[in-house]
């Protein structure tokens, strides 16, 4: 699974009413998908479960968009 698809799957698990594939990759996905802070933590948890990568609070800004989040995961993989 690509990093992007992992993230999309996590979003859909937390917010089943969202079709994550329609979210623009360069916008703040929390706003686009109307996720609040608890939802966001849940997404990070789901991504962590899938990839083992945990995003510290200090790095939240780096994972604000889908494409930056995917890049972050690729950079921290392995």
């Amino acid at each position, binding site marked *: 699974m690509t990093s992007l698809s992992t993230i999309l799957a996590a979003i859909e698990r937390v*917010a089943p*009413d969202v079709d994550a594939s329609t979210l623009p990759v360069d916008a703040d996905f*929390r*706003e686009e998908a*109307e996720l*609040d*802070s*608890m939802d966001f*933590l849940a997404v*990070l*948890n789901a991504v*962590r479960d899938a990839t083992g990568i*945990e*995003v*510290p*609070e*200090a790095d939240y800004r780096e994972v604000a968009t889908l494409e930056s989040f995917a890049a972050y995961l690729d950079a921290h993989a392995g």
Partner: protein
Amino acid sequence: MATTTAGTTDFVMPSLGADMTEGRITEWLVQPGDSVTRGQIVVVVETDKSDIEVEVFEPGTVTELLVPEGERVAVGTPIARIEPVGATPAHRTPPAQAVPAVPTTPPAPRPGPAPATPRITSPVIRHLAEQLDVAPAEVRATGAGGRVHRDDVERAAAVHVARPAPVRRAQRVTPRARKLLADHGLDAHGFGTDTLVTGDVVLAALAAPPPPVAVAPDAGRPDRAATMRRHIADLMARSWAEIPHYHVTSRLDLTAATDALTRHNATRPLAERVVPGTALLCATARAAAAVPACNGWWRDGGFVGADSVRLGVVLSLRSGGIIVPTIVDADTLGLDEMMQRLAELVQRARQGRLRASDMVEATITVTNLGDRGAESVVGVIQPPQVALVGIGVVHDGVWASGGAAAVRPTANATLSGDHRAIDGLTGSRFLARMQTALDRIVEQEITGQEITRPETEE
């Protein structure tokens, strides 16, 4: 719970909300003969707003289920009999299939039908019901004088097809039958528990007149969104009409709290991080403990104070509408515990599986718009409570300090008060105590002090 024959206790349909008059048994999680422990979930009840998991509070043995799945009964109706631990075995009532203790009708194949069971008078429609394995109790009769029409039966059957239920333990289905069912996207629920479901039985059913066109998964269930909207509308209208509201507002300085949360989260793994709203809930609960005049109910023309803080938390459902579960003893919880409680409630609310213990009556309610709301919210009190706390989004605000302007994280807190019970001064004190509580939480988190109740006002 009322005690009937010596030894058994009636487990009744609980009230799971102030306005609830009846509930429908969605699923029994126990059978006669099962022993149950304190806090064990034994039945799932469908209400207008959510499926609620109902627990028992005393250990014992289930002796009888009185109301079958799918049936709707009034609050207070006995739905099961449980023999408490230590009760006299000699008085044990016989298991499920027996006639109920107070029969008014001849023995029925299913335990204790409610008096309102529709009677299917037409032989043709009765045959259809048998064919579709629809019990009379499951049919909602729409005809004049309670007559059951053909489409009433078909609608009840559609619930079977469209809402796959777990195969009940007593049901026997052969592997070939399972495969056939799976191939056709059906489940075994419609076959009842009396027959051994073989491949031939499935083939015969498939060859029979086709069931009605599959409808949306919630067919036969109340349209939750519409019902919820109506409920909210009624409650808000009643509140606004009956309660003389006043409002006081204050800005909360979240500098210290935000710093503490950042430090707290930096050392915690993802699963233990705390969202800012948690600190606000803790502060609200502690203010309620400190100003008990705001923590209770208006009943029979007077204020009745509560002995603990049961904080109602307004949750927005993604599908629209709100639900307000309760966090008990909210003033005694630290940040981590409050976060955990909140996360559990949000998850259960989203899945539509709240528990009866989540729905106990609150003593005060808070509505926190979270991250993407307006800067302040002035809410409508949930009767019979006397106060509602509204908290707007946390945002950077200009703050006058030492004669100069500074920028600090702030949030606007509003208390809507019932002027029959409390006046503006008390409301103002409440908001002041929220700020104190916020700062005190911060102190406690840093120093690891034990949480004690703040000194009570007046």
